[in-house]
């Protein structure tokens, strides 16, 4: 079984009504980084995870959770 990182960035972003570009600018990364992290194609470093959590004012665990492939 393979572990993967599930995230809620898209939901937090839409709640806060910010675009991928605005979020990317706020944490000094590229829009592509945000896009690939959101879709799970790229696993970010702890630094980016903390920056995202800080931006949304939540804990890292609220944004990311470890899941097993096959889980819904």
């Amino acid at each position, binding site marked *: 079984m393979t572990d993967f990182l599930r995230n809620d960035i898209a939901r937090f972003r839409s709640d806060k009504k910010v675009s991928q570009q605005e979020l990317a600018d706020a944490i*000094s*990364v*590229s829009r592509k*980084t945000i896009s*690939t992290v959101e*879709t799970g194609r*790229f696993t*970010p470093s702890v630094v980016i995870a903390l920056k995202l959590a800080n931006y949304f004012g939540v804990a890292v665990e609220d944004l990311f959770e470890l899941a097993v492939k096959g889980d819904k």
Partner: protein
Amino acid sequence: MTAQSTPINEEILLKQTGLLGFFTGSIILLPVISDILKSTSLGGESLITAKVLIFLALFVGLIVSLVKQIKAGKKVDSKNYWFSNFEDELFNHINEKAYKYSWTMSLTTLIVFALYGSSITNETASVNQVCQAIIGVMLFSFGLTILIKLRGNND
């Protein structure tokens, strides 16, 4: 004073580096592929014309991407530029993946030449030809990986 790297400047630099690798690798591989085709039924007058046309197109691409790459290089931190580092995590990841694929493809080419070198070229391939093929594959796969990964993450 060194330039401040921004994600947009780094993206342009990575794309141009990918294009530069692709065009340079293709130009280096062109005579190798042509030599292989010469020994088959595909060789002939049309092959020479196609080779010249492809070379010209690749050469123009190479010059354009080289100029753009140097220009983009001036807009990022010079240390990062020369050491091939990117501040943006995704671009650094793509760059490292490209190095990984390039190494694997070069090794595969070396193994193919080591095992079947003489049967591919009809005669024993010279050291120059083998080096040319490996450098070509190395640059081509490096550039192509960057372009595919950048395109794949374009949504």
